[in-house]
């Protein structure tokens, strides 16, 4: 008797929310009525936005089969092989040579030599070049994989956040990156709006969040946004937004770095600037000092210089605050402009939300308090949600709204705005504004054009973004060539062009010649961007390498897991609990450890995984004993214990969930 096959239930594919940050990136999703961040293989919620070009095997005969690593593992490369690594690539998205002169002075970006004005940038890593979107695509792909590992299912749809003040080119670059990473980007969401969503959802649970005017102050690694919203019965309506896409924690780092470099040169006679690796090491120290100064009154720098000398310096908080004041004050102007555009006074802001790691700095909180007159009115800024994670959480909420997958988000709606006015270049190089900044999106405008010459069949339109009067002072967005206009006497054609800014804040243009009714053929030349065809080839390229990339990645991950457990086990004999083991057990552990150490540098991923599981199992008893002995140095043992509980019975041995040591990349 044949059994009937039960019909396959269609799996509801999850849409994830992604915060593609300057310094760190995250992926999150809606679990029931709660947004949750998805951790990486090392247990960390934050993936550093660092990409490095590795060579998997230097002994390999096949010429440079390079792999790309992302995140904590790429962090090492920054110091050891700085010419093969890149950080803060978000600063380059949607930008051209002319824009990034300042960045080039302060960041070790290496660009290709032959970039033309108006062209997309190309960055050199080792002997290869990448566009900023491709680099970001590698980060997105890592996040995608983290999510797929977590769900045990494919993930192809995402919501990605962007700074509210990002222009059209920067948004397109982000969406291109998503596509290259194999993600269907359903929506780009502005970061402060996403944070407001996460916060609003949080408040709604407590019965708050009705009819409020909220400001979101978002100071991240590289960008600053200020948005003013009205929250009303589940509708999050942005009233005005402003910001600076060249301003963030990176600028503070660079300032401290410059001061340290000058001091080192003056006091020790050494100019570190030509030593890329020494600079990165100093940068790391300076960042640690910055973080310390958020909670301690003094921080210390202690660096070994190339000549063996030591540079040591104490930085008291007052000195630090004095130094960084000009950077922080740059946030005041956009705040005032946003308030003016919203037509409200600072004291009409009822709630203020702080977003972004840099808002942990006490001087930032003081400044915000002054600008928005908070403590005068007995108010505090909101920091209940982790400022590093809140944007990703909000993106997950928006993903849930789009998916219609949760009753908690059914009634929520985001009404966002375009941050910059849209204009057309007219005679004399003047800009005619057709859509005002802070217009709710989607927004549209219709314009009419005609020809200047008899028989003219093409009309060129130059579209710009910005608030200035002259085209030269605004951002060039794209040139549109309207082709296929039926030849007529000059001035007769009536070409209606529809400009539509969609819900992502990205421009769409359609055109029709009204007398003939013909749709004009539009060729778009994006400034600082890629055409659709170019993006397509970039996806295909990574598909070609997908197979080899996949295997290389599996191998790297297996090695990371092996390393983790090996270092834990190497520390084991130092623990008093080690003495409680009998000789047999110690021998078994040693054998398993030696076997894994030997096999780890080979290429057999399955064998490495098997050896890792084996070692883990031999140490279970020891791990329990360590717990009982309650030795504090056994932190790693504790996680091994937790991991072994999670591993379950031996039949699941093929599935390794690696022991999860502490999240932050070790700086030792």
């Amino acid at each position, binding site marked *: 008797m044949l059994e009937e096959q039960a019909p396959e239930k269609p799996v509801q594919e999850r849409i994830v929310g992604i915060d593609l940050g300057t310094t760190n990136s995250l992926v999150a999703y809606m679990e029931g009525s709660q947004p949750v961040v998805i951790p990486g293989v090392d247990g960390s919620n934050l993936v550093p936005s660092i990409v490095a070009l590795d060579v998997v095997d230097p002994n390999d005969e096949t010429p440079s089969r390079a792999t790309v690593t992302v995140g904590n593992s790429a962090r090492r490369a920054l110091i050891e092989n700085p010419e093969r690594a890149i950080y803060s690539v978000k600063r380059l998205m949607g930008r051209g040579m002319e824009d990034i002169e300042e960045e080039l002075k302060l960041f070790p970006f290496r660009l290709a030599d032959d970039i033309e004005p108006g062209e997309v940038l190309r960055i050199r890593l080792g002997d290869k070049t990448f566009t900023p979107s491709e680099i970001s695509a590698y980060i997105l792909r890592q996040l995608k994989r983290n999510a797929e590992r977590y769900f045990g299912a494919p993930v192809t749809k995402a919501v990605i956040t962007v700074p509210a003040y990002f222009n059209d080119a920067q948004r397109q670059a982000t969406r291109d990156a998503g596509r290259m990473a194999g993600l269907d980007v*359903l*929506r780009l969401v502005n970061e402060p709006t996403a944070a407001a969503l996460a916060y609003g959802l949080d408040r709604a649970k407590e019965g708050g969040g009705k009819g409020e005017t909220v400001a979101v102050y978002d100071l991240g690694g590289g960008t600053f946004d200020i948005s003013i919203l009205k929250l*009303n*019965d589940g*509708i999050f309506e942005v009233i005005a937004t402003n910001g600076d896409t060249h301003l963030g924690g990176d600028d503070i780092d660079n300032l401290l770095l410059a001061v340290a470099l000058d001091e080192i040169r003056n006091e020790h006679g050494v100019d570190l600037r030509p030593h890329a690796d020494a600079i990165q090491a100093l940068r790391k120290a300076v960042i640690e000092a910055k973080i310390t100064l958020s909670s301690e009154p003094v921080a210390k720098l202690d660096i070994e210089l190339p000549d063996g000398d030591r540079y040591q310096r104490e930085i008291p908080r007052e000195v630090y605050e004095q130094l960084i004041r000009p950077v922080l004050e740059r946030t005041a102007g956009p705040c005032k402009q946003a308030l003016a555009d919203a037509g409200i006074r600072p004291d009409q802001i009822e709630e203020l939300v702080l977003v972004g790691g840099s808002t942990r700095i006490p001087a930032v909180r003081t400044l915000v308090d002054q600008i928005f007159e908070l403590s005068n009115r007995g108010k505090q800024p909101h920091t209940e949600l982790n400022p590093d994670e809140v944007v990703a959480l909000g993106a997950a909420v*928006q993903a849930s*709204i*789009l*998916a*219609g997958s949760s009753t908690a988000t059914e*009634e929520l*709606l*985001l*009404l966002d705005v375009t941050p910059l006015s849209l204009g057309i270049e*007219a*005679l*004399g190089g*003047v*800009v*005619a*504004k*057709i859509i005002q900044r802070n*217009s*709710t*999106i*989607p*927004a*549209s405008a219709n314009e009419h054009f005609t020809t200047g010459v008899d028989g003219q069949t093409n009309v060129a339109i130059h579209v710009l973004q910005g608030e200035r009067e002259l085209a030269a002072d605004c951002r060039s967005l794209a040139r549109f060539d309207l082709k296929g206009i039926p030849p007529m006497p000059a001035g007769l054609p009536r070409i209606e062009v529809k400009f*539509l*800014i*969609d*819900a992502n804040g990205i421009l769409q243009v359609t055109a029709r010649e009204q007398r003939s009714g013909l749709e004009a053929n539009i060729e778009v030349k994006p400034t600082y961007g890629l055409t659709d065809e170019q993006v397509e080839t970039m996806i295909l390229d990574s598909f070609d390498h997908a197979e080899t990339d996949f295997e290389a990645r599996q191998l790297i991950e297996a090695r990371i897991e092996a390393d983790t457990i090996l270092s834990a086990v190497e520390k084991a004999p130092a623990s008093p609990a080690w003495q409680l083991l009998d000789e047999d057990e110690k021998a078994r552990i040693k054998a398993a450890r030696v076997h894994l150490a030997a096999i780890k540098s080979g290429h057999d991923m399955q064998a490495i995984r098997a050896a890792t599981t084996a070692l883990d199992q031999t140490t279970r008893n020891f791990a329990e004993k360590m717990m009982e002995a309650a030795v504090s140095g056994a932190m790693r043992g504790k996680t091994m214990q937790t991991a072994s509980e999670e591993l379950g019975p031996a039949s699941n041995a093929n599935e390794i969930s690696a022991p999860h040591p502490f999240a932050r990349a070790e700086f030792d």
Partner: protein
Amino acid sequence: MSTASTTSAPAACWACGAAPTTSALLCPDCGKVQPASAADYFQVFGLERRLNLDTSALEREFHRLSRRLHPDRFARASAGEQQWSLANTALLNDAYRALRDTLQRTEYLLRLEGLKIGEEHAGKGKSADRQPPADLLEEVFELNMQLEEMRMNQKMGEDDPGLQSDLTAARARFESLLTAVDNDLAARGSEWDNGDPAARERAAASMAALLDRRRYLRNLVRDVNEVLSTAAA
């Protein structure tokens, strides 16, 4: 010759045939989104063409329609529905933006009724408002002289507190003229709403002139503010 745009009355619902008694973008009966229409802004909200408007009711209706039309609600719908949603929401947003602001609403309605209103935005310069209002010729001339003098002083780095207080007084004067214009506009608006076609024509012509006057005064006040704030800096 009337060049009033007679936007065609929106069609009946394609799905159930009901008349569009509320918004032209959504069927009031079956709730289906209507194809991107040539509806005018008043039709978008199912409103009569009137200058007086309940702005809180408008906001509520805007939120209600947004919830139904917004592209976020159509993320899993067909490509066709997504296009309709996008076009309709853009229209809804444009309509809300125009109608909720008194001046923009007035300009829009007058344009709809066939009058030539508003700044040319081909970048050729603000033509109609280059003309100072006839009754203010002398005052405006005087003010412009003072502004020039102030600007010269600022270039030289000189101070003239007497001039500054003169300008401050002038600003107050022109701001009160602006308020008078706004009151006039409101009054004409009511006349238009409640009047017969002849009354409407008179009111409309009067409002068109008032709008030109207002724009001129507004630019002037802005110029004074610029100069005074540079002084204060």
